[in-house]
């Protein structure tokens, strides 16, 4: 194995480059650059490859670059005794003309153009969202009139996926949230000797806010992403097109059962989360603060009334719609590549969580203004 070497000779004013040794990707790195630099300063007319031992496309690349430089400078470059095949490869690379427009232009947009582009894209996305919302409403209208069709089995599958199968994670999170709330409350209320009010704090916080919000966030991450990925993959696979061309509305067939499933399941999950959160609070109060379970329970029942519970359930219902719509919409509008499906799942989760927290905030303001 020998490394690449070269020699530039001047024979009666005719400059020639002679290459020796191995010209492969692993051996010729420095030399190629040096030769190109040399050529720019004082061009040579002949390249002699007679002494080249091993070579690969790095040699061809060097020859082509030299050839291009020579053509730009209106010079002729002669190749002499190149290795067998190398000459043919150089010619092959030169025969197919560069496709016009195939070279992607990398134009740096001005700041103004960039802002404009962004605004237009966002505007179109917002339009898309409202369009999708409208389509879902129409689909619901068809459902009410008994015209929408989807398979009962699909709905059952989605119900089981969004309900019972979500229970373990909802259980874990709700109990932990209850425990955390109890600890936070206990530290503060102990100073006033009012430990029993931990039950009020945990109960009201769970039922009004944390129950529905934590379920919403869990379901956005779990189910919203699954919807987007599933529908996005169907889009890649042309399955959605197949529904359309067969005159089956993908809105009715795919989106509607998912919205229905979450509308049914979210309030139920929220109730379950409320209960388990309160249980988590009880564990701390009974175990670490010396309250009896009965005391805690009576205190909770006195503190929490139906208004609080219904408020949580209404929010859970709305969050269900939000999660289903952001998930399905991102799936339906997904591009047709693996990365597009990934993006669809990501934006489904992000949009879902953001919407949930914004809506929850709005509810907090409105209910406090109305004194509910």
């Amino acid at each position, binding site marked *: 194995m020998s490394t690449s070497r070269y020699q530039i000779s001047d024979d009666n004013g005719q400059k020639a480059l002679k290459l020796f040794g191995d010209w492969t990707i692993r051996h010729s790195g420095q030399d190629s650059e040096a030769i190109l630099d040399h050529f720019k300063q004082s061009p040579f007319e002949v390249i002699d490859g007679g002494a080249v031992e091993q070579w690969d496309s790095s040699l061809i690349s060097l020859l082509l670059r030299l050839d291009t430089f020579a053509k730009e400078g209106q010079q002729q470059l002669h190749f002499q005794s190149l290795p067998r095949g190398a000459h043919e490869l150089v010619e092959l690379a030169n025969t197919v003309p560069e496709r016009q427009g195939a070279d992607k232009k990398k134009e740096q947009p001005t700041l103004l153009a960039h802002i404009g582009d962004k605004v237009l894209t966002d505007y179109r996305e917002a339009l898309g969202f409202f369009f999708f919302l409208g389509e879902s409403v129409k689909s619901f209208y068809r459902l009410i009139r008994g015209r929408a*069709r989807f*398979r009962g089995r*699909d709905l059952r599958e989605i119900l089981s996926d969004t309900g019972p199968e979500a229970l373990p994670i909802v259980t874990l999170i709700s109990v932990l949230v209850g425990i955390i709330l109890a600890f936070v409350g206990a530290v503060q209320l102990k100073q006033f000797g009012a430990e029993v009010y931990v039950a009020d704090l945990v109960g009201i916080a769970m039922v009004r806010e944390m129950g529905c919000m934590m379920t919403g966030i869990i379901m956005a991450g779990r189910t919203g992403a699954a919807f987007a990925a599933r529908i996005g*993959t*169907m889009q890649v*696979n*042309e*399955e959605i*097109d*197949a*529904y*359309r*061309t*067969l*005159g*089956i509305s993908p809105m009715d067939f795919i989106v509607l059962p998912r919205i229905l499933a979450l509308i049914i399941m979210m309030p139920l999950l929220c109730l379950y989360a409320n209960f388990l959160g309160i249980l988590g609070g009880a564990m701390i109060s009974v175990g670490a603060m010396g309250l009896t379970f009965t005391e805690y329970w009576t205190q909770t029942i006195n503190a929490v009334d139906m208004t609080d519970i219904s408020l949580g359930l209404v929010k859970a219902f709305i969050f269900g719609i939000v999660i289903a719509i952001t998930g399905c919409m991102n799936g339906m509008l997904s591009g047709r590549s693996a990365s597009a499906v990934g993006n669809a799942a990501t934006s489904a989760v992000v949009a879902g969580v953001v919407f949930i927290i914004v809506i929850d905030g709005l509810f907090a303001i409105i209910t406090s203004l109305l004194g509910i």
Partner: protein
Amino acid sequence: MADKSSSNSIIKAEDLTMAYGDFVVQKDLTFDIKSQDIFIIMGGSGCGKSTLLKHFIGLKQPATGRVLFHSDSQQNQRESDYIDFWQAEESRRQRLMQRCGVLYQSGALWSSMTLAENIALPIGEYTDLSESDIRHLASLKLALVGLKGFEDYYPSEISGGMRKRAGLARALALEPDILFLDEPSAGLDPISARLLDDLILQLRDNLGCTLVVVTHELASIFAIGNNSVFLDAETKTMLTTGDPNELVKHSEHETVRRFLTRGAEE
């Protein structure tokens, strides 16, 4: 002469221009697809063959120009012979689409359903047949494409060639007059591709379908095609239309002859 040739045209494209936003894919496409033709849409990679197909099956609206379908003559005789697909109202378009079957490039079977359910769904949607009738029909369609006994398999459990054939069975579900096939033999081994071609010919002969096939497999083009349009990526328009077996000998366009002879010099 124009009248005579158009009298049995089932689909017509008139001055069709296809574009994605500002980017024009093909322009000035005008050709006729006659009843019981096996019409080949051919051209090099990336020239817009599949995009053209999308204009016929209601997935993409033309930038300009018209796509005309012959109206079902049994229903409204002589009222108006051709329907402008993209100007027609939604319900009309739906009815036209029900006359068409589509085989997608990847098969596009619904992955959450078995093969039988894939075929049963459109039948159930548009007919009042009983469940067992539908099940038998689905089995029959599968048997026609050589997939007898695969009713309860899911699309992910069968091979690519079988998925194509199952896709064809689904395309046949609603007894279509017109079948659109997007690269039916792409990704198949030569024997399977040949079998699929034979199947296509049999469907035309026995069911009387008109077939519109997007392909660049030369063997298929000559074996099944009796009419065609050639889309050129460079000039962004069609170069010629006609029987590919004639075009290979007599086309005045060198690009077309080169394409049909795999670039061999004459």
